[in-house]
């Protein structure tokens, strides 16, 4: 008749070993670093020309523009948002700075030549404005960043098209061309700029109040709001930061490539997102940082550069990059779960 009484015993959840626990919670930092070491080791063995000082310089130069753009994107992804307009914003800023510079007479372009400093300021103002529009759409109107920045991607591309109307411009202000393509005692300026911006991003995220807020908003937006943080202000700021970083990357990139033209930066969208995510910054926000982005940049840089050294079908390269990105995404999501389990 009456049910046998059940005694429910809760098995004492065995605490995992401390080291295992640490490994679990640090998986997002360890996995990208291991990937970097494995890839470097592989290419060093596979090609004698890979592991040289010269080639290290090549890799650094190759990842610099991506690195500058990725600084701002790291802030955005830490807030659990995304910015798909960074490559377009980079492109339009690069084009704008050329548009406001005196071009050679054979360039058939109806532009507005200004003093170098004015051209740079106007270009910076343009990318900041585009970032503000992203911020407005995301926070005030409430458009998801994924969609808002998709629209901005098209808008920035449209402005680029209107400015150049087909031709290619070559001249940029001398400050920009020095920073983009010059070097000082053998070190390219663009590497130095990228290093400074990455360092500045790291300092802001780690040591400032704003940086802490970025992590808190990314970690738990609802709790941030109920802690009395101005979440919209922080989200808006990171969108502007991302656009300005992209703009600087775009200006130096134009100088680096030696020309300003439509669709010049298209590959940089995927590359910068890949650098941030491969590096281990959580797509769910709140975890990761510039350190991760730097590791991610090197993973991508080593991969791109190394594949050129080992004589591989250039079409296969694209597929390999896609697979590496997929693997990184799997690890990223998995690391989040492990971490959540380690904490709860």
């Amino acid at each position, binding site marked *: 008749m009456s049910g046998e009484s*059940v005694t429910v015993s809760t098995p004492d959840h065995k605490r995992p070993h401390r080291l295992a626990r640490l490994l679990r919670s640090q998986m997002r930092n360890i996995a990208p670093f291991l990937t970097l070491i494995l890839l470097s080791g592989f290419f060093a063995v596979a090609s004698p020309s890979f592991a040289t000082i010269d080639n290290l310089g090549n890799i650094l130069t190759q990842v610099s523009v991506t690195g500058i753009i990725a600084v701002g994107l790291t802030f955005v992804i830490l807030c659990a948002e995304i910015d798909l307009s960074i490559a377009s914003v980079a492109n339009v800023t690069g084009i704008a700075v050329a548009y406001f510079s005196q071009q050679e007479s054979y360039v058939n372009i109806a532009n507005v030549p200004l003093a170098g400093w004015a051209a740079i300021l106007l270009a910076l103002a343009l990318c900041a404005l585009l970032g503000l529009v992203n911020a407005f759409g995301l926070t005030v109107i409430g458009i998801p960043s994924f969609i808002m920045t998709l629209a901005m991607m098209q808008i920035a591309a449209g402005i680029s098209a209107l400015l150049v109307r087909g031709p290619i411009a070559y001249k940029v202000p001398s400050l920009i061309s020095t920073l983009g393509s010059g070097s000082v005692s053998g070190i390219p300026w663009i590497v130095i700029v990228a290093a400074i911006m990455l360092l500045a991003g790291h300092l802001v995220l780690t040591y400032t*109040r704003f940086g*802490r807020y970025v992590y808190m908003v990314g970690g*738990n937006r609802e*709790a941030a709001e*109920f802690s*009395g943080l101005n*979440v*919209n202000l922080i989200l808006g700021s990171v969108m502007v930061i991302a656009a300005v970083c992209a703009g600087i990357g775009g200006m130096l990139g134009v100088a680096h490539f030696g020309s300003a033209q439509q669709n010049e930066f298209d590959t940089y969208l995927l590359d910068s997102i890949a650098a941030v995510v491969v590096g281990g910054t959580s797509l769910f926000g709140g975890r990761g940082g510039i350190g991760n982005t730097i590791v991610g940049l090197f993973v991508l840089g080593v991969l791109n550069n190394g594949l050129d050294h080992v004589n591989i079908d250039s079409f296969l390269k694209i597929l390999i990059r896609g697979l590496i990105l997929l693997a990184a995404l799997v690890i990223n999501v998995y690391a989040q779960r492990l971490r959540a389990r380690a*904490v709860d």
Partner: protein
Amino acid sequence: MPEDRSPILELQGITKAFGGVEALRGVDFTLRPGEIHGLVGENGAGKSTLMKIIAGVHPEFSGRFLLDGHETRFRSTRDARAAGIAMVHQELSVAPDLSVAENVFLGNQPTNRFGLVQWRRMAREAGDQLARFGIDVDPAMRLGDLPIGLQQLIEIARVLFSGARIIILDEPTSALSPPEVERLFSTLRRLRDEGTAIIFISHFIEDILRVSDTVTVFRNGRKVTDTAAAATSKAELIEAMIGKGREALEETYTHDIALPARSERPVVLGVDQVSLPRGLQDVSFDVRAGEVLGVYGFMGCGQLELSRILFGKLWPGQGTLRLAGALQSFANTADARRAGIAFVPESRRAMLFHQEPIYKNISVSILDRISSLLLKPARERSIAARQVEQLQIRPAAVELDLGMLSGGNQQKVALAKWLTYPPRLLVLCEPTRGMDVGAKNDVIQIVRDLRDKGLAIIVMSTEPETVLSLADRIIVLKRGAVVREFAGEAISKDRLLEAA
């Protein structure tokens, strides 16, 4: 008469435990066709657990489960549905972007032999069914465009007309207006007369008494009594629900508690005629320095909305807020915090950062007071260490991730983060929910100490014990309006329940 018929459902000695805590202990329950069976009991008394067993949500339990006299075990909600058991859950679960007709036939759309949906037939039948229920809406309308009460009625209609033999309604009336409740009841009676068995759970005891044939009372996971509705009264049911205070170790607040005389100290917060469409109606009250105002009401009474308005997360449609006499309109929660309001929401997920260390959780709301541009982590840690010691948070390691703490200690952290710089007003939602007795007492003591230091505090809860244990003065919210205030008088739990 229902008693003549053999039971459609018979449960014997049902016991169910979650992680060592018994939610149901040896419960017997009988349901006959053609009866409306009311269930009452406090939060956590076991009503919902029993219903979830019946609806196949919890397949693991011990005891006998007889359907039509045959021993049965549901492995899932699908099994239960196939056996003709349907349930309306407490939380609205509709698809607001689909049409009314699609919602009525959710998961059950009429199809032709090629598997294509018969839209016209669906719209026609949905319209007919709703008309039988006294609802006159265009079945093609988007459900989300209708008022909440109507949405809830349509969800109920979906279940009522699904052809189920056993229908479980968990708190169906909380969002309904009195005429809507009336319409629901007449439909329930008609279904009963057609032979359907209906289980009706509600906090509104008048509703239970009006519509039920039989009433079963739960307390602490046991069935206390079942009786014919005609043979009992509200007072009797409330007494059965809360017991005489002898069984449990905890304070049960069945005896009278004398509330102190109304405070004469300055008013800190003045709320005047605050209204919110479909949420609050002309809510007015004030809170004085050195007093705890309790806001009590059932789930859905408007507490949640009121608390959000106080912290700048929702904006009142009408009405004003004053802090120490000065008119306030908060653009966001940061404004409210800077104005001196501290807020602890009802869910710990919504107030803390589980993957961050304790000290960052404690310092998050005061960073702009202890640092300008650069963080001062050493200062943060020392402040956190002091709070951890004062509130006796265990373990006392400020570097530890918050997620490692027990619920009670997390709740203390949520308080601690507001106490370094005393706020003007502290708003606490469900401050002791889901805590063991020890942690509960700690939190109660902390809140009393703060009050004695002159803080104005609002405690909002759907649990009468929480309000009774903390408040100096109590207002009762019902369907978005203040219906009663208790001040300077003796009060007991049954009188509080009676008012709500």
